[in-house]
């Protein structure tokens, strides 16, 4: 797409949103329209005590809550951003591959420009807050996990029997919560494919690998899956996510048992035997083991940032906890140390490339910026324009399925944050996040369990539910494994194996 045409499109959409937002602000009160700084942002309160105090002070002067005046259609750029991620890879994959960064920038600009123009200082604060407090730590964690796990390589000859394959899936599931679903998937997908070189049908193995290693396995810690790290950034304690252990065990237990039976059936049906051990059998070994030290450093840094309180640092008007900056610094250090100390050969043999993490970086800046109005409206609770959603989603079972169904087709990280805020808006509307989150965990923890489990588990329902899914698919297809199409995956696998499992989980835990 020519830059000129892109600029014209941005301009047109910006002008439309600008006019609409101005009208909405005018309709709610002249003060809001003419003095953006007078509007208070609920989201600004989750930075901690300082922001809460500032927000409280502002509210005392009777200004409007930003989340209460924003129109529903201010969420359109967010919806379009997510729909772009869902639809472009399906219908225009080549265009999407070469222009996804521009698409992300386009939707970010269509929200940010009119938002800043109308609400000025408050809008700038909101955008900076989401970038500094959410996007930056999010991308740093993903980068660190991606870099460190990319330095670990499993070598050796494996024979893909049903037992060996199941063991690989179990190991991946166990590792996913500690090295991230992306890290565990990248570590084990190639050994799994190599081990099953001689097998005829491998697609279902890769699909179950996506179910377990790239999704459900990451549900135990904030390191496992990005949605849970976003929860951690918003005040959910590190070990709280262990509350999801029972549903995780049930889900993974069912899927592993089904996989073993399925693999045994195919193994016997194919009637193939592993090729005779030609040449020298390479012993199983892990190269780059020292990277587990850096992995431990990452776990330690995230843990420590949730345990200490070193006060706050004001960065461009955004108050962030000092320990959060220190954590981010340690994560970067771990990544750099891994890069420096890992041999080039390991990275080469791992086919290590920065491309996937750069993609995530480009796409998520668009997601985080465009989601700002949506989160503000949800936080306003029944006073915001998403009151119908908050009124409709009442019980844990609703949260589990709605978060899950949306996570199946939209990225699960923003979906988690959306329903996390829906729960806060429902139970504690207008309350600063620092106060609301502990209350939610204490009195209505089951709701957050349902949201967390829904976001993490259902991410496996389609290729677009979670970032590692497409990486695994890409590696499998490159290695010559024909994978099911987008709809084939859902019909042949998700509907058949995942959805019934989630129904069982619902009956056991969320009804």
């Amino acid at each position, binding site marked *: 797409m020519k830059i000129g045409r892109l600029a014209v499109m941005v301009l047109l959409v910006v002008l439309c949103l600008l006019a609409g937002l101005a009208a909405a602000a005018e309709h709610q009160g002249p003060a809001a329209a003419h003095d953006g700084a007078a509007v208070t942002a609920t989201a600004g309160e989750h930075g901690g005590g300082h922001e809460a105090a500032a927000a409280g002070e502002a509210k005392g002067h009777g200004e409007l809550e930003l989340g209460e005046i924003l129109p529903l259609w201010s969420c359109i750029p967010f919806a379009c951003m997510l729909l772009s991620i869902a639809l*472009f890879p399906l219908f225009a994959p*080549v265009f999407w591959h070469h222009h996804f960064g521009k698409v992300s920038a386009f939707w970010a600009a269509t929200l940010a420009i009119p938002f800043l123009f109308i609400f000025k200082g408050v809008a700038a604060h909101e955008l900076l807050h989401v970038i500094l407090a959410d996007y930056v730590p999010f991308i740093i964690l993903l980068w660190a996990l991606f870099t460190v796990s990319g330095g670990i390589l499993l070598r050796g000859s494996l024979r893909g029997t049903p037992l060996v394959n199941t063991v690989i899936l179990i190991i991946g599931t166990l590792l996913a919560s500690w090295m991230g679903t992306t890290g565990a998937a990248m570590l084990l997908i190639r050994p799994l494919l190599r081990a099953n070189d001689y097998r005829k049908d491998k697609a279902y193995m890769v699909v179950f690998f996506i179910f377990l290693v790239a999704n459900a396995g990451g549900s135990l810690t904030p390191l496992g899956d990005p949605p849970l790290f976003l929860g951690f950034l918003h005040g959910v304690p590190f070990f709280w996510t262990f509350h999801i252990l029972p549903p995780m065990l049930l889900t993974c237990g069912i899927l592993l048992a089904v996989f073993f039976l399925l693999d045994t059936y195919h193994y016997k049906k194919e009637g193939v035997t592993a090729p005779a051990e030609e040449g020298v059998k390479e012993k199983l070994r892990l190269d780059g083991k020292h990277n587990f030290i850096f992995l431990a450093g990452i776990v330690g840094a995230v843990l420590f940032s949730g345990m200490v309180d070193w006060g706050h640092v004001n960065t461009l008007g955004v108050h962030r906890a000092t320990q959060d900056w220190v954590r981010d610094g340690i994560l970067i250090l771990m990544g750099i140390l891994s890069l420096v100390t890992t041999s080039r050969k390991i990275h080469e043999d791992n086919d290590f*490339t920065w*491309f996937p993490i750069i993609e*995530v970086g480009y796409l998520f800046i668009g997601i985080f910026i465009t989601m700002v109005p949506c989160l503000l409206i949800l936080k306003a609770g029944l006073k915001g324009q998403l009151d119908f959603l908050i009124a409709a989603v009442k019980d844990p079972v609703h949260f589990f399925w709605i978060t899950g169904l949306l996570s199946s087709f939209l990225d699960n990280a923003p979906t988690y944050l959306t329903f996390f805020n829906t729960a806060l808006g429902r139970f504690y509307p207008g309350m600063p996040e620092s106060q609301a989150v502990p209350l939610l965990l204490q009195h209505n923890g089951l709701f957050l369990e349902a949201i967390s489990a829904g976001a993490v588990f259902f991410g496996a329902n389609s290729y677009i539910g979670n970032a590692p899914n497409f990486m695994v*698919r890409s590696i499998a297809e490159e290695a010559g494994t024909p994978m099911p199409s987008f709809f084939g995956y859902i019909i042949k696998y998700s509907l058949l194996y995942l959805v019934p499992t989630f129904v069982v989980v619902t009956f056991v835990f969320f009804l």
Partner: protein
Amino acid sequence: MVIKKLLFPTKFQELAFNALECLLDMKKIGLEEIVLAHVIDREEVGFVPYGGYLKEEEIRMREEAQIRFEDWQKALVKRGLRSKIRIEVGNPIPEVLRIADEEGVDLIVAGRKNRSNLEKAHIGSHTLELMRHSSLPVLICKYMVQYERQGERVTQVNEHPFRRPLLATDWSPNSRKALTLAASFKGLAEKILVAHVIEAKICKGCDASEVERLKKESNERLAAYCRELEQQGLAAEAHLYSGPSVPALIDLSREQKATMIIMGTTGKDRFREFWLGSVSHRVAEFSELPVLLVP
């Protein structure tokens, strides 16, 4: 050391075939086979955000590369050279090195990038990376180069790189390897220019007698190199220069109308090479001539 088999990896940039054509004369010095390789960068077809892998795109790229290579092969057949086509998907540099290893080639030929007006370097980051990591000789083939000389923009076509090569030596073991390789150019090279640059910083603080001793020693070594080449039946000419190595070598190559620079890659420590680049790498980067690096 005879080059019997070379690897010609290409991204089909402008004038890539012309660059290949100017290497065909190497048949006279023993070249028997050329491996034509095209590496489809994994990032071009893989990891489509939330989409997976562009299999059809890969097939299309493979077919395009195959058709072009088959056309090139006709020219190679006419010249009596064997050829082989390799089209792979992967990370370009490791993949090129892997192909070189599998095929057992004696030389890797690297192209030059399409340079913008703002850039002074004559090679791209991929070629630089290849130079750093290859354990085989690498020829950076710059078929057509534009550069500024005395304020004027000059376009140079390097059609016959082997006609008048300049062997730049620092007396290291790798320089000796470069000498052995240069000695195999009999029948193609009219004359080999053997050069050494006394680094300006070495002379700094030396008295006249010390400088004189250095000059004498260098001239003797140059003469010994020339004698070795002459014993192989090649004409050779010694040149001693002084100054900063890189600009001195580039000036010398221009003054003596060299057609190529041959150098052993110097074994600088990794830290220094990372920040400054070795002399050989910087010559490869900034000279308008093809550069043959011998590790």
